[in-house]
């Protein structure tokens, strides 16, 4: 074993070591076979890049990189607080501008002005100009609002005063009329002009009685809800020595202080004495009553009324002019609002990113680090060049690739079709960097398993039509903001499209069109035993022709033995499909880690693959063997004779061999992996010490954040992990296979529901021979089908197909502990903005 220094000096040896290291990395990534690369099967190759950007072109560079949207920047200033960062003040400015924009938005919605979604695209505006403009607009708007409020306050006060004048005037006028009437009754020769308030019975003194008795009054408005309480308290406080008259106003008046419309009553309180006056005044203030002065003199009253009316109309004109001015202002804002919003948002995000870059000591350049896919290198370099040119800086940006051991983020290049399927997989867990992606197969198997549970070509056609409609309106819907449920349906439109197409296929196989079978592919294989069909209800039909060529024979529907037959068929089908999918899962694990798939294959296929074989053999030969019996006694007494349960020759030997192989497979799953990993770790460490030395000058930062998870290797931990994995697999083999029986369960539920709706609603309504009942029946049938079968069953089958994929399929091979690639991109920011 050559020493370290010897190997370092020998260049050829070094080359060999490097090559071996690279081969090992490649093997670890691609598992065993070197299959040609397939889109979407593994996540994109990523590398860590380092950009050294001169300060004058920093802003523009980040802006162009945001347009491309293919770099995920790393936060190099993570230890600093938000206030310590370089561009904190800029972000604060952007925050201020956002606040102003939000204020404008509020004002516009209050005034009922809608902002145009597509604003006039003016030339690029600079942040400072925009800031100044927003500032002055805000000041103007605040001023206009304040003026408006003041004017409104004055207006409502005057309105109230006018009402008081009118109504109280009526009080006094009525009083005068009745007083003069009474006067005429009692003493007809008294002059008509000496009037007293009618409320006084004491009419001995003729002239101004109020002056003699010093009767005062208070007029005002009190809110209707408080009117009774007001009256009661005044009565109590003054010991009943006052008189209160109230009249309710029919319309609500705008209260000057609160600005709301309130139902009010006009009241007049008559009292004598100063003490009572002060009490009444205090009580009115407590009740927030608006008091207004009032003169008894009739002439002055009319004069006041005309004066007030004049002032009211003036005020109204002023207020309207003010509102109009505000309206034009807001409209002007509304036109440009969207564009301003976007600019501010964009700038804010650019400064956020700039804050993440670490600033060099000389303050002349910024250093950025980030993940980016390898294929985007050219694009990024072009953008950097463009930014350097546009900002007329003298130095270009430096672009370097760093070597690191950290786990890169996972990035799948999906189009709008595969995006939703990948989202289904990601919802469970984002794939680890470059592990086999189940999304590839999910595109087909997910809609297929859904269809196995949904199987009705009538319902499938309905779903297809609905989805085609949504897809045809794709462009329109993608611009709009949809409700939550519609958003989910729209996002998954291609999934639902495939689901409906497969449903039509499985519907044809199950031969169900809204639960009605049709003989579309030829005649049914069954017929009566004799011409009279006498024993068709006891012994049944008999198979006279070849098997019905495509799907379930239409003769089965409605018979007594339909359920036993279909149940047996569907249960066995579920097992067969389940074993097939689980095998696919195990084979995918081959692409992730070589050795563990062989014992797993042996175990699963030795038991459940054998069961599948027995099912097919029983169908093919038509024997009456009891499969339960065979499987159970294979374990309980494997050496016993099979007797009538024999399906093929040497079955006993085959079963014994399979049992033995399965038993061997269990320790094979458990033991080798920990030891092999241990040996690998040892050899890797020996090579790594060499790699350390010559990578030193390559990476500046790579060393500092080297992951330590492959430095430590706890053997006991790995062993326990493998033990758990083995037990999970062995027990899971039984439970997962049984779990696939939900394919049978749901398809049974679907066909039974559909049959019930058809027979008990539609046929029942048909039987009455009445048009109205028929129409009602059809409507009920349509609603029941749409609500229960098309919506609820779809969701239910979707959910169960999802579960089968996430648990039974993916736990055979999927690790799913990666993290998603989130690049800095303006397009993504806009989407987030709209959804928030």
């Amino acid at each position, binding site marked *: 074993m050559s020493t370290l220094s010897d190997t370092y000096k020998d260049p050829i040896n070094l080359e060999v070591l490097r090559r071996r290291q690279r081969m090992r990395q490649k093997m670890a990534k691609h598992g065993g076979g070197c299959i*040609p*690369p*397939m*889109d*979407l*099967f593994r996540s994109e190759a990523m590398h860590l890049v380092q950009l050294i950007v001169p300060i004058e072109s920093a802003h523009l560079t980040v802006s162009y990189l945001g347009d491309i949207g293919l770099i995920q920047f790393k936060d190099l200033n993570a230890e600093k607080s938000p206030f310590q960062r370089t561009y904190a003040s800029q972000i604060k400015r952007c925050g201020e501008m956002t606040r102003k924009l939000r204020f404008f938005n509020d004002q516009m919605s209050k005034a009922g002005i809608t902002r145009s979604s597509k604003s006039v695209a003016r030339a690029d505006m600079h942040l400072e100009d925009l800031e100044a403009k927003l500032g002055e607009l805000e000041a103007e708007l605040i001023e206009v609002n304040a003026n408006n409020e003041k004017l409104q306050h004055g207006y409502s006060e005057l309105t109230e005063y006018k009402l008081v004048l009118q109504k109280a005037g009526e009080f006094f006028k009525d009083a005068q009329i009745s007083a003069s009437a009474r006067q005429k009754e009692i003493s007809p020769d008294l002059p008509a002009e000496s009037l007293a308030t009618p409320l006084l019975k004491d009419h001995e003194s003729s002239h101004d009685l109020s002056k003699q008795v010093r009767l005062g009054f208070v007029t005002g408005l009190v809110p209707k809800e408080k009117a009774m309480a007001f009256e009661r308290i005044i009565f109590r406080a003054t010991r009943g020595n006052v008189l209160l008259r109230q009249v309710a106003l029919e319309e609500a008046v705008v209260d000057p202080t609160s600005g709301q419309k309130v139902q009010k009553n006009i009241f007049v309180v008559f009292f004598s004495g100063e003490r009572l006056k002060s009490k009444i005044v205090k009580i009115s203030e407590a009740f927030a009553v608006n008091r207004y002065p009032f003169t008894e003199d009739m002439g002055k009253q009319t004069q006041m009324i005309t004066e007030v009316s004049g002032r009211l109309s003036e005020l109204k004109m002023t207020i309207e002019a003010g509102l109009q001015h505000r309206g034009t202002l807001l409209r002007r804002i509304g036109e440009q609002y969207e564009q301003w919003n976007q600019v501010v948002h964009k700038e804010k995000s650019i400064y956020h990113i700039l804050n993440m870059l670490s600033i060099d000591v000389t303050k002349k350049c910024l250093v950025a680090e980030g993940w980016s896919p390898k294929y985007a290198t050219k694009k990024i370099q072009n953008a950097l060049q463009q930014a350097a040119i546009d900002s007329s800086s003298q130095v270009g940006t430096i672009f370097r690739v760093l070597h690191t051991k950290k786990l890169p983020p996972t990035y799948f290049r999906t189009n709008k079709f595969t995006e939703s399927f990948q989202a289904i997989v990601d919802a469970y867990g984002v794939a680890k960097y470059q592990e086999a992606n189940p999304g*590839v*197969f999910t*595109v*087909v*198997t997910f809609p*297929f398993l859904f269809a*196995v549970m949904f199987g009705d070509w009538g319902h499938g056609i309905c779903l297809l039509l609905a989805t085609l409609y949504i897809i045809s309106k794709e462009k329109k819907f993608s611009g709009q903001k949809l409700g939550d449920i519609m958003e989910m349906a729209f996002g998954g439109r291609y999934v639902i499209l495939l689901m409906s197409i497969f449903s039509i*296929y*499985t519907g044809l*196989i199950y031969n169900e069109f809204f639960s009605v079978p049709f003989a579309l592919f030829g005649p049914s*294989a*069954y017929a009566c035993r004799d011409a009279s069909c006498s024993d*068709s*209800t*006891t*012994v*049944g*039909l*008999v*198979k006279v022709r*070849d*098997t*019905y*060529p*495509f*799907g*379930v*024979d239409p*003769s*089965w529907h*409605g*018979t*007594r*033995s*339909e359920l*036993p*037959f279909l149940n*047996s*068929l569907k249960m*066995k*089908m579920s097992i*067969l*499909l389940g074993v*097939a999918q689980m095998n696919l899962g195990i084979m995918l694990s081959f692409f992730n880690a070589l050795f563990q798939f062989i014992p797993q294959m042996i175990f699963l296929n030795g038991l459940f693959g054998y069961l599948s074989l027995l099912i*097919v053999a029983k*169908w*093919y*030969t*038509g024997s*009456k063997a009891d499969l339960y019996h065979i499987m159970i006694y294979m374990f309980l007494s494997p050496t016993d004779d099979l007797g009538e349960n024999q399906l093929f020759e040497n079955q006993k030997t085959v079963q014994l061999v399979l049992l033995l192989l399965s038993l061997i497979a269990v320790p094979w799953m458990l033991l080798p992996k920990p030891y092999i990993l241990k040996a690998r770790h040892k050899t890797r460490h020996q090579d790594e010490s060499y790699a350390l030395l010559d990578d030193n000058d390559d990476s500046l930062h790579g060393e500092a954040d080297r992951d330590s998870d492959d430095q430590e290797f706890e053997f006991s931990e790995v062993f326990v992990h493998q033990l758990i994995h083995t037990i999970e697999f062995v027990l899971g083999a039984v439970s997962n296979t049984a779990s696939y029986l939900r394919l049978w369960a749901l398809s049974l539920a679907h066909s039974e529901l559909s049959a019930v709706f058809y027979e008990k609603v539609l046929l029942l309504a048909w039987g009455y021979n009445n048009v109205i009942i028929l129409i009602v029946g059809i409507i009920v049938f349509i609603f029941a089908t749409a609500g229960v079968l098309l919506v609820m069953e779809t969701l239910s089958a979707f959910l169960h197909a999802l579960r089968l994929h996430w648990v039974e399929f993916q736990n055979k091979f999927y690790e799913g502990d990666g993290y998603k690639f989130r690049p800095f991109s303006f397009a993504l920011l806009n989407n987030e903005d709209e959804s928030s």
Partner: protein
Amino acid sequence: MGFLLTTLVFVVIGIVASLCARICCNKGPSANLLHLTLVITATVCCWMMWAIVYLAQMNPLIVPILSESE
């Protein structure tokens, strides 16, 4: 015989579909491989389902027993 014949039909349909996929959307070797995988998976799934239902009816152990017509 019907079984083998129809299986052959499925194989032919599968080949035709993959050729169509290759002609319509030819976007480079890795994308082509993806399309091929999807088409083959779909064909295999559809064939399996048909084959299971067909095999189950080839040698039936129970026959349809009509229910009493009311």
